[in-house]
């Protein structure tokens, strides 16, 4: 149960013309996780999500969703998945209450309590006209419509996009509320690393169509480290350091960001005979930016990757 995967892809690839949008993706999402799918704009996140849902067919490779081949998803499987897109289909002329009543009959497991709970949480009045709602309120209504069918797997494509801080907090609270059921999985893409840090326990990083990390959040964070070296004079030239991401030099200081910092890395840095060598803790956002902004060799972080000790 613990290691059951609700999403699994093997070499998932999609081309648009000659351009690879998603390349050889091996993604694994364990059941019960809150999984953040990260990457810069245009890195292929939405295409990946659409392939997972069977809305775009892969050029090569494949995968499974709740154990079912993504090329042959059945209505029964789809009914167990909640999907929130950037632009949820909402009817402007309906009232909030009517939107709920309209959707409910399509879903055998529809829970009116959840629908009411979420719209209440976003401060929506049941009698309000959909077309008069603010962006945050529309997002709240979309979320209510996605959560009320009580999905086993929730896939949210950039749910925080364009939300103000209050609406964003309501969104994160709703996601945390959902984790009350340990068997529910949330897979969401986001650019907001503060939210990710609060709510996610696993993450994947997509970079220029290629998967660069798929691991627990803490593994990622502890795999990227910044080392501060102090010197009596100008710092010497940097030799080849294994896992080097970035280096900054000032008059008497060298700051090096590396991945999988270990004894070997430390030996290489000690060879420069610095006055002091100190490992500085790094926040998730800084780690993420260093990782994607790297100029050296490409690396990959996995759940069982070597972690600095």
């Amino acid at each position, binding site marked *: 149960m613990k290691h059951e995967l609700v999403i699994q892809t093997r070499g998932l690839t999609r081309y648009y013309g000659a351009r690879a949008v998603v390349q050889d993706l091996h993604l694994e999402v364990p059941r019960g996780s809150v999984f953040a799918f990260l990457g810069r704009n245009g890195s292929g996140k939405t295409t990946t999500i659409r392939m997972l849902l069977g809305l775009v067919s892969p050029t090569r490779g494949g995968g499974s969703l709740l154990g079912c081949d993504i090329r042959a998803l059945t209505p029964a499987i789809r009914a167990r998945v909640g999907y929130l897109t950037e632009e949820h289909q909402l009817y402007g002329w309906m009232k909030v209450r009517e939107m709920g009543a309209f959707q409910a009959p399509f879903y055998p497991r529809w829970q009116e309590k959840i629908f009411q709970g979420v719209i209440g949480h976003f401060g929506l009045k049941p009698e309000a006209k959909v077309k008069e709602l603010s962006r945050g309120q529309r997002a709240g209504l979309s979320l209510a419509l996605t959560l009320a069918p009580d999905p086993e797997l929730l896939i949210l494509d950039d749910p925080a996009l364009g939300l103000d801080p209050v609406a964003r907090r309501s969104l994160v609270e709703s996601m*945390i509320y959902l*984790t009350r059921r340990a068997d529910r999985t949330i897979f969401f893409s986001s650019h907001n690393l*503060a939210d990710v*840090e609060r709510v996610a326990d696993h993450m994947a990083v997509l970079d220029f169509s290629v998967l660069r990390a798929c691991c627990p959040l*803490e593994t990622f964070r502890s795999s990227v480290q910044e080392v501060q070296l102090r010197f009596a004079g100008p710092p010497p030239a940097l030799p080849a350091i294994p896992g080097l991401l970035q280096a900054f030099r000032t008059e008497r200081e060298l700051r090096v960001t590396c991945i999988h910092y270990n004894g070997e890395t430390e030996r290489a840095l000690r060879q420069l005979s610095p*006055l*002091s060598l*100190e490992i500085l803790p*790094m*926040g998730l956002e800084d780690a993420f930016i260093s990782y994607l902004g790297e100029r050296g060799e490409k690396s990959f972080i996995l759940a069982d990757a070597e972690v600095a000790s």
Partner: protein
Amino acid sequence: MNFNIVISTGSSTPIYKQITDQVKRAVVSGQLTVADPLPSVRALAESLVLNPNTVARAYADLAREGIIETRPGRGVFIIHKRKVFAREEGWRRLEPLLEALLGEAMALDFTPEELKAALDQKLSEWQPPAGDKSKESQ
């Protein structure tokens, strides 16, 4: 008891560590004492808006260090009993902090005497005075 945990995202300190640090500080300062209750994992996760696994990890660390105890069906309580290897483990953790302190002090041209004096000063401020607890609750 007005013990509150405050979380900041984007910090270089992981959230689980912010929780353990704040509980430990509250115990050291006498703000929390033996048998005081802490919120359940779920309650704390929802009030701080955090993934429950993060809170669970913090509580597991605190339990392993003998600072809290979960009594099934009753809740989470401060116990603060020392483990046998606590000293040894403590030194292992203190060592790199001392190294960092010395390195920083040297780089800033402090003399050993100045450093010692500063440390003594800090220690005298840090020590919770006896009987402080009654003041705390007023």
